[in-house]
């Protein structure tokens, strides 16, 4: 294992992308993710890669489309308002079955909102985040190490399933510094016979396109894509279970909310409450399997989020509403304290008895 170094989450993910073979980054400044662009601006020219500051988030995502269409590992990063601008391109990318990595270091919204950490783009990320029937792969890191590790994973999954992948972080993940171990990752071999590389006069033209004016054709494309999504749902759910073996109560939280919740779970355990935590790492596909199992043995669930309650809907769906699901949240850039989460756990326990 490589030596640990102290890095900001934004920088760790940028370096991890380079180590994962990404040589094409297109971005636009926005707080709190600008370190990604700054890091790429410094590194890419030294290693024969491309860093380009686009004129807008819209242009940046379309440059990613171009590079991805040419068969390259390409990425962009932004924060919430910028992701809204990218959502047009994300929809096209999904419609064209193009793999790429999109990083969202979330800040509070709606509108211009604030610049403090948030998870309020959960719906936008997990429900597609653009017009039309589609999904993104959505990965949610909860440490600087995971900010790095999930980058290679994201690229591999995106290429394997030919769909865009979003790394859904938040301002805390982007800004905080933690020791991280970065290692050159082995890129999963992925043939791209569909890529635009020039026909050389030897094959028929490759066409990358999301337009189908015949509704029967478009319906078929969507059906085919959703069959692929079913395979993703079956094979790629990821979650971390914490103290779930004997848990009677279950906290569900991702990202920074999971870090806070873990402290609260420990404090509740010290008080004798048998509580555990499921931390989704893939938000799409949502880790339904592990939640379904938990539904059979836990009395109640608590969704802890940095928004007005978005993931809670997926928790309820995953457990078929078999058990009560409480919500503990802060919004607008606020983060709940471990005490607030502990209080919510205690309330869940009292009501769940």
């Amino acid at each position, binding site marked *: 294992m490589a030596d640990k170094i102290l890095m900001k989450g934004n920088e760790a993910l940028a370096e991890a992308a380079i180590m994962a073979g990404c040589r*094409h980054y*297109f971005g636009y400044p926005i707080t709190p993710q600008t370190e990604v662009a700054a890091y790429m601006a410094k590194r890419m020219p030294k290693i024969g890669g*491309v860093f*380009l500051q*686009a*004129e*807008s988030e*819209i*242009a*940046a995502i*379309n*440059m*990613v*489309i*171009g*590079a*991805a*269409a*040419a*068969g*390259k590992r*390409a990425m962009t990063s932004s924060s919430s308002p910028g992701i809204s601008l990218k959502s*047009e*391109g994300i929809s*096209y990318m999904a419609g*064209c079955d193009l793999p790429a990595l999109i990083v969202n270091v979330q800040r509070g919204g709606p509108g211009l909102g604030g610049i403090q950490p948030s998870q309020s783009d959960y719906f936008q990320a997990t429900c597609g985040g653009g017009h039309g029937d589609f999904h993104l792969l959505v990965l949610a890191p909860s440490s600087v190490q995971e900010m790095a590790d999930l980058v290679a994973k994201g690229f591999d999954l995106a290429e394997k399933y030919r769909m865009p992948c979003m790394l859904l972080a938040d301002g805390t993940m982007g800004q905080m510094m933690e020791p991280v171990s970065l290692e050159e990752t082995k890129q999963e071999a992925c043939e791209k016979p569909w890529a*635009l*590389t*020039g*026909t*050389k*006069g*030897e094959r028929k*033209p*490759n*066409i*990358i*396109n*999301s*337009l189908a004016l015949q509704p029967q054709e478009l319906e078929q494309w969507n059906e085919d894509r959703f069959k692929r999504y079913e395979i993703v749902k079956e094979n790629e759910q990821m979650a971390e279970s914490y103290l779930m073996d004997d848990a009677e109560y279950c906290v569900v939280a991702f990202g920074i909310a999971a870090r806070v919740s873990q402290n609260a779970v420990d404090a509740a355990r010290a008080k004798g409450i048998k509580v555990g935590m499921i931390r989704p790492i893939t938000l799409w596909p949502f880790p339904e399997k592990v939640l379904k199992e938990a539904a059979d043995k836990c009395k109640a669930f608590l969704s802890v989020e940095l928004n007005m309650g978005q993931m809670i809907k997926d928790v309820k769906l995953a457990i078929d509403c078999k058990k009560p699901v409480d919500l503990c949240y802060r919004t607008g850039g606020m983060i709940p304290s471990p005490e607030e989460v502990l209080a919510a756990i205690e309330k869940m326990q009292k009501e769940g008895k």
Partner: protein
Amino acid sequence: MIVFDKPKALTDAPLHYCPGCTHGIIHRLVAEAIDNLNIGGETIGVASVGCSVFTYNYFNVDMVQAAHGRAPAVATGVKRADPSKIVFTYQGDGDLASIGMAETVHAAARGENITIIFVNNAIYGMTGGQMAPTSLPGQVTQTSPYGRDTNTVGFPVKVCELLSTLDGAGYIERVAVNNVKNVRNAKKAIEKAFRNQVEGKGFSLIEVVSTCPTNWGKTPQGALEWLEENMLPYYPLGVYKDKFAEEAAK
């Protein structure tokens, strides 16, 4: 002996364009340029949104379909991914000069080594004849039914004039395809715009003043006459910038 044949860079797909539309001529000129430079196997085209949305069916090269106005950004991504490829966009006036103005201006400002074919027929064709950024003052369209009123909606955008002020823009020329002489000039300009890229020189844009008989409410011949009488005085033909020629002359 065959003296006139279909360019290799065109597929056999029948064009969907209306009778009298000049897209067909422009497609041919682009394909001839690709053939003459022998770059078809290395060329990647970027289709836009509008009447030219189906260009990916017509050019016999690798193609990607861009969102409305975003073709220069997509082309930038393709070119940066592999600078050895010859990358062009084919865009109409609504696509390039309205919704895609930012992408156009910044691709030019960066001196992106791509070729843009900009077809200006002063109207939104595909959606049925709405006012375009290049519709002429007084021009009647579906969304300017009393004629384009410059007091309320302002003036047409002159793309070549605008882009030629940018240091990054290399070769900017406006041509037309309304008569044989102009078609021959357009052919030269389009080929030069591709050759500039092959030679690694930088950003080239050719504006082709074009017709839309259907949405102008004219016969094909009437549309050509209207173009000459109304479009050309407002959009004068000529080379607006040739940085590469200036540099070569130094």
